[in-house]
């Protein structure tokens, strides 16, 4: 069969069609990336270039002043550390706890299964900001307001339903025939889990944790409402910074870049694993 090395079938596909598809793809990519480029472009410009009625499409006088003024802020580094701690705690907990529930829903048939699915689906509806007042009162009564653990707990609940639901999808994607074949060959339930389900859910776990990381890292309203200025994350810092500076666009964009770097780096490092479905390979042997 005529195939490219990436497995795309070539039968019935014209060169002109491929040309137009490629052109559309390139235009789409350029439109998508432009706002990101514009943030970078602005951050490396001196103020007089930023505040110009004829914007320059690349920095003529390349400068790092905007970054210096953003990094020089008193609470910048503490906010970054806070954000990393909170995010790591929330994502790790959501992954462990959520995977167990996803496994139950995807692989067991038991009384109450549909009820659990219903709960997991329904709680994603709850507008989380609405729960801020009762959550604040609850956390206050156990001395967890203005603390990183308190915020991590709230983020855990924020991530958990999505984690369970997504992992359930990934586990369901693994053919049951693999489980059954392994059990016929003498594997126990635990061995099926460690040798088949966990390795094959790898890409799913990675994708889910990436998404969880982004959700937790990007949140700023809850932490802003629960914690004092000294216990904020970088995103909330960016919001404060914005209010103080008004429209000092250069430093604002520089601060935004620094805030985005952990997410972008983490994301790009593991992006290869995200869309890779291992299941197709497993069935085909």
């Amino acid at each position, binding site marked *: 069969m005529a195939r490219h090395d990436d497995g795309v079938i070539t039968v019935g596909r014209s060169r002109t069609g491929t040309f137009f598809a490629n052109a559309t793809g390139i235009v789409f990519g350029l439109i998508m990336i432009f706002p990101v480029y514009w943030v970078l472009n602005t951050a490396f410009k001196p103020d007089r270039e930023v505040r110009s009625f004829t914007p320059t499409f690349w920095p003529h006088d390349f400068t790092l002043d905007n970054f210096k003024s953003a990094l020089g802020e008193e609470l910048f580094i503490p906010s970054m550390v806070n954000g990393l701690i909170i995010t790591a705690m929330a994502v790790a907990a959501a992954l462990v706890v959520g995977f167990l529930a996803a496994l139950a829903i995807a692989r067991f048939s038991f009384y109450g299964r549909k009820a659990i699915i219903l709960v997991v689906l329904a709680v994603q509806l709850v*507008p989380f900001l609405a729960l801020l007042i009762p959550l604040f009162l609850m956390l206050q009564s156990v001395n967890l307001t203005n603390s990183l653990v308190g915020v991590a707990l709230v983020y855990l609940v924020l991530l958990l339903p999505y984690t369970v639901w997504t992992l359930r999808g990934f586990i369901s994607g693994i053919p049951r025939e693999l489980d059954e074949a392994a059990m016929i060959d003498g594997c126990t339930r635990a061995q099926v889990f460690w040798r088949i389900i966990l390795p094959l859910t790898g890409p799913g776990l990675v994708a889910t944790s990436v998404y969880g990381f982004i959700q937790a890292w990007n949140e700023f309203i809850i932490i802003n409402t629960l914690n004092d200025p000294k216990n904020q994350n970088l995103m909330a810092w960016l919001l404060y910074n914005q209010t103080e500076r008004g*429209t000092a666009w250069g430093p604002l964009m520089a601060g935004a870049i620094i805030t985005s770097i952990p997410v972008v780096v983490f994301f790009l490092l593991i992006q290869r694993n995200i869309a890779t479905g291992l299941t197709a390979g497993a069935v085909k042997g």
Partner: protein
Amino acid sequence: MHAVDSRPAPAPAPQATPPKTAKRVRSRSQRDSGVAWLLSLPTLLILIAMLGYPLYRMIVLSFQNMRLRELFSGATPPWAGVDQYTKALTDSVFWGVVGRTAGFTVVSVTLSVLAGLGIALLMRRVTRGVRMFMMIAMMFVWALPQLVAAQAFRWLTDSDFGVLNYVLTQLGLDYSTHSWFVNPWEGWAVITALVVWAGIPFLAISLSAGLTQVPKELLEAATVDGANPWQSLRNITLPILKPLLMIVTTLSVIWNFGLFTQNWALRDGHPEPVYQTLATYSYTQAFGRSIYSYGSAISVITVLLMFGVMVFYIRQMFKIGEVD
């Protein structure tokens, strides 16, 4: 062709196994039930403590009259019956917020899901290098935090120094010092563009991953049998993709219905009435004006509105057998 060779192997297994007695089947399934509940227990406990209980407190709060004084003194707020609900449901401002939120959700979800599906299909069609470029562009957009993206769009549409006005003016339209948020339709177009732009990577990359689950043998067979690309899409790809499509669409509805960050940031943390959505309206009432109970009542109504959508969705899911 390994698939064909290996498939018959498991088939004889049920015949080879002696028929199980009813007793053995039941004890096996009872043990499974126990294991399954044990696995689900941590999730359920967390959801009950951190979501169920606050939800209950929120409902109670909506029938009270809690203001700043009660928050600080810790005194039980006075009972208010259905006053908060009557206030909301007879207020045309509130209904305006509901209509605006619903309209935005329909438009933005339709646009982003169609775009996401189109891009996912396009990615199967382009050459490797272009696909890589599209992936990289989307990865950067996906990775960009919501607040940063909102700031970027605020800067792009700045009336004095924004590049959008500059480009439009260069194209011969008079957009110099044009303010995009004076006319609410234009302002909402900017917000919608931001939400769709930011939503495409998740949708396109998820759906593109879903497309790899479509058996290539099936598409090859269809092509050999003379099916055109549209027929292959309608009759093979979309039915297989449907469960995933339903999931990502519902998630988009949930996220976009709860719009907060984008209109909040683009309007500098003080959205004008015409830029209020249910989420920002409730938050503003509670934390801006310290009318916690009224904010809670609005939240309860929001949950009820979404619950209708969700019940319909869950029923659909069970009907098509996605949740088996």
